[in-house]
């Protein structure tokens, strides 16, 4: 088998595996039929083209299932029910998410992250990595929250919650690094230190706590 054919057949196998994964239960038998038929294709037939067909049929079935009227109504009802929770999650994790984007952008462009950052014993890239990783809780937590809210049964799971709490701890540790921000001792309300503590640690921790409560509730319901 030449390298091109080998690569093509590997891509085809990956595509059919993906098609099987995304298939709706109603379509599973048909996708299985297509995938097994692929195993019988003669050498001159394009496995890649067949596999693309599998993926197309799989997504077509999924899309149709999603846009069936009862499902649409369920999604609208779910969204309406989740709006207050969604707002709380946005409030808690949105600032960290925004900071993550801002730090990423500043780091890539070589701008100082905040006044006084030049005095830190780090290069712009190192400071970006340190403070950027402290805000990772924002995008990761928000993605977990959206995923959890998208279904009445989804839950982040114990391992994922451990990761989120570890990220929260990481944020506290990272923010202790710059000597001019003695966060935990001088963070009086209204000060810049307090705002940083609120956005980087307190609000994300609140979001993660809420997610933890949702996780525990759904686990109890599942049991």
């Amino acid at each position, binding site marked *: 088998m030449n390298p091109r054919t080998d690569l093509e057949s590997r891509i085809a196998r990956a595509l059919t595996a993906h098609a099987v994964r995304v298939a709706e239960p109603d379509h599973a038998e048909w996708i299985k039929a297509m995938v097994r*038929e692929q195993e*019988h294709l003669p050498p001159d037939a394009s496995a890649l*083209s067949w596999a693309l067909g599998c993926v197309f049929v799989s997504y*077509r079935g999924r899309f149709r299932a999603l846009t069936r009227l009862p499902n649409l109504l369920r999604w609208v009802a779910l969204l309406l029910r989740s709006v207050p929770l969604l707002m709380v999650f946005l409030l808690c994790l949105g600032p960290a998410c925004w900071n993550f984007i801002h730090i990423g952008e500043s780091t890539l462009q070589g701008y100082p992250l905040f006044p006084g950052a030049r005095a830190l014993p780090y290069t712009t890239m190192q400071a970006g990595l340190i403070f950027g990783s402290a805000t990772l809780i924002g995008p990761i937590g928000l993605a977990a929250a959206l995923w959890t809210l998208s279904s009445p049964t989804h839950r982040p799971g114990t391992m994922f919650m451990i990761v989120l709490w570890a990220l929260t701890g990481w944020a506290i540790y990272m923010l202790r690094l710059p000597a001019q921000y003695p966060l935990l001792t001088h963070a009086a309300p209204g000060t810049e230190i307090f705002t940083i503590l609120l956005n980087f640690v307190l609000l994300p921790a609140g979001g993660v706590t809420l997610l933890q409560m949702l996780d525990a509730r759904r686990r109890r319901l599942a049991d």
Partner: protein
Amino acid sequence: MERRRRPSRHTLALLDALTQRPRAWHYGYDLSRLTELKSGTLYPILMRLCERGVLESKWQPAAQEGRPPRHMYRLTATGVVFARDSLAAQPAGRRIGSAGEYA
């Protein structure tokens, strides 16, 4: 009341291929080759025709050792009638020749 649309040209090509040997079982790839339809077009039609009772399907163990079983399709008795009626109802100008040659 169920809405009955006129079969598409792809469906007609498939029905034409199947009516060549109406009671024989066909593999998906054979039908794809006969009709020149891609798998992504062929299988949704097969699904729809099976749901409507025009086609029946079954799993056939593979002839070769270690190969997976294959899904096979053939027209049901009502499917044969449906296929002949649908093909006959086509305007003469649309039907060019054998399967896959619908304009």
